[in-house]
């Protein structure tokens, strides 16, 4: 009998994080998503340099141009503004808006989630009820209510979305913390003399990073959709600043005169949301296989 696989030399030390990163990057889908997202960030940073026109410049003589009419690659809108230039500038909003929301959600969700999961007892039940309450108000409705108070605008809208999605993160963090808390190494950390704070920071947090990463990715996509919806309703970014959602609003208002206006911003939103979603799934799969190794 012959052993098929040659005996490899002892493998060099691999940190779990590096192993994990390699697993994520091994998938072509994940790689493609990362490349696309990277591209959007590059566009956002260099939008003014790349854009062929001033995004707000109105070419009143060339309104409602369908795509591929030189020099307007993606055509022009109702005011004769270059769609490509607007889409490029709008990528800034698509990068910043989810960051605001997810930042808020992370700050609230992680701290409260860790507290609820690790301390448990009364703290847990009070925070849990609070999260339940906020969570039972649909995110967009909560955002509307906050906007009613603070007035329309991108930052207000995204703060509201962040607040509304915090309970989701809270639940994930709390659940993961509860699971990790049951692990023997947490008990062991108490035995070797770690204070509670040290245990949470050094032993709990790093061990919930995987589900946290997955949720962050998924929340980014949710926040982007929410931004688009609110801007579409005119409650997010205010004219004349472009966002992909706001561009769809123009398309909606002009759907008889320029039906093609709906294509570019919609596709961009979808690709970006898809990237975040697929990345989230990809990370989740990589964790799955991480668990399954022997």
């Amino acid at each position, binding site marked *: *009998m012959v*052993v*098929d*696989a040659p*005996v*490899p030399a002892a493998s060099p030390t691999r940190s779990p994080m590096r192993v994990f990163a390699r697993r994520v990057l091994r998938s072509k889908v994940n790689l493609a998503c990362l490349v696309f997202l990277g591209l959007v960030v590059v566009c956002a940073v260099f939008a003014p340099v790349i854009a062929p026109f001033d995004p707000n410049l109105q070419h009143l003589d060339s309104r409602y141009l369908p795509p591929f009419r030189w020099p307007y690659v993606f055509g022009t809108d109702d005011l004769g503004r270059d769609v490509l230039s607007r889409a490029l500038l709008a990528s800034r909003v698509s990068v910043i808006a989810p960051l605001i929301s997810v930042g808020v959600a992370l700050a609230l969700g992680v701290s409260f989630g860790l507290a609820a999961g690790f301390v448990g007892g009364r703290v847990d039940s009070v925070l849990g009820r609070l999260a339940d309450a906020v969570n039972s108000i649909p995110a967009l409705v909560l955002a509307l209510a906050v906007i009613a108070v603070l007035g329309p605008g991108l930052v207000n809208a995204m703060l509201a979305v962040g607040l509304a999605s915090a309970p989701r993160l809270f639940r994930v963090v709390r659940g993961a913390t509860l699971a990790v808390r049951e692990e023997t190494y947490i008990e062991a950390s108490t035995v070797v003399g770690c204070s509670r704070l040290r245990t949470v920071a050094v032993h709990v947090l790093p061990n919930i990073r995987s589900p946290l990463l997955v949720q962050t990715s998924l929340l980014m996509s949710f926040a982007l959709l929410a931004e688009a919806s609110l801007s579409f309703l005119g409650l997010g970014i205010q004219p004349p600043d472009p966002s992909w959602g706001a561009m769809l609003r123009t398309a909606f208002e002009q759907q008889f005169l320029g039906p093609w206006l709906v294509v570019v911003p919609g596709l961009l939103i979808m690709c970006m949301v898809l990237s975040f979603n697929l990345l989230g799934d990809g990370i989740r799969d990589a964790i799955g*296989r991480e668990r399954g190794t022997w």
Partner: protein
Amino acid sequence: MSSEALLRIRDLRVEFASDDGWQRVVDGAHLDVQPGGARALVGESGSGKTVTALAAMGLLPRRHSRIPTGRIELAGQNLLDLSDRQLRPLRGTELAMIFQEPMTSLNPAYTVGEQIAETVRVHTGASRKDAWRRAVEVLGEVGIPAAARRALEYPHTFSGGMRQRVMIAMAISCRPKLLIADEPTTALDVTVQASILALLRELQETTSMAVLLVTHDLGVVADFCDDVTVMYAGQPVEEADTVELFGSPRHPYTSGLLQAMPQAAHTGLDLSSIPGVVPRADRMPPGCRFHPRCSHAQEGLCDIAEPDLVPVDGAHTSRCLRIQRGEIDELSRTVDDRVGAARADLDGRTL
């Protein structure tokens, strides 16, 4: 003759898909179970014993595993030739299986009576009423008190030992000729283990059902089985009658396992141990798979030549070149054999 064997496994190889291609986790499994007999399949984790048992039931995950060669014969019929549809009527009636984890092996959404009655209905075409009656009857047979009432309850209301009894009831409900028990008592307490083993022994006597017991516990083997197959790293390394194997093991691995068990009275001494770990399926050493851990290994022989499983003493087979060549005479089985005898003497009086 082995042709009389109820279950005959010959040269069975099983491979699992992994990131680095197919890995052979069972490499030449070989065993017989006689009608009404009890065969033990022993090994540590990673030895391939459970995979062999699952292969016999046709329960390997289809998409991640394959069987490149081998025969699994039940009463002369090669199960590997059968389609799933052909195999299905045999499961539960000819051969049945119980598992290590009684806590997760029962469907949480149905009552235990329903799960047993369902088996009876599918295999015998019995009416709902008759099937239920039979379910209650077997629950009683396996020693569940107030069986008629408990049949109406859901699995989560049963303790681990009771769930394993339910699993056994389900397995024997259609009177199979062979029961494959995969570590049936590993998850249970010793006193519960003792009662489950007693139950299996009793069922074996009353129904003349053959049992293939997969276990890592040599004590359980000594208690329950007529014959033993010891597996190491995907291969059977020794096969013999139980008394013979425990009395004079003919493979260094077996003797190592026997010596590693803490024994009655040699408290003051260090335990002997087997250095190292079981090699991974993709990192099998050349030559004898056990040689890197073997105290009897000979350079230039064991690390080069691959031994076969051959008879060394009557029906006693061993996969050790040095034993086969007669270079090792006696492998000690315990540090002091007299200890065991003394213990027996003692048990006879105190218990």
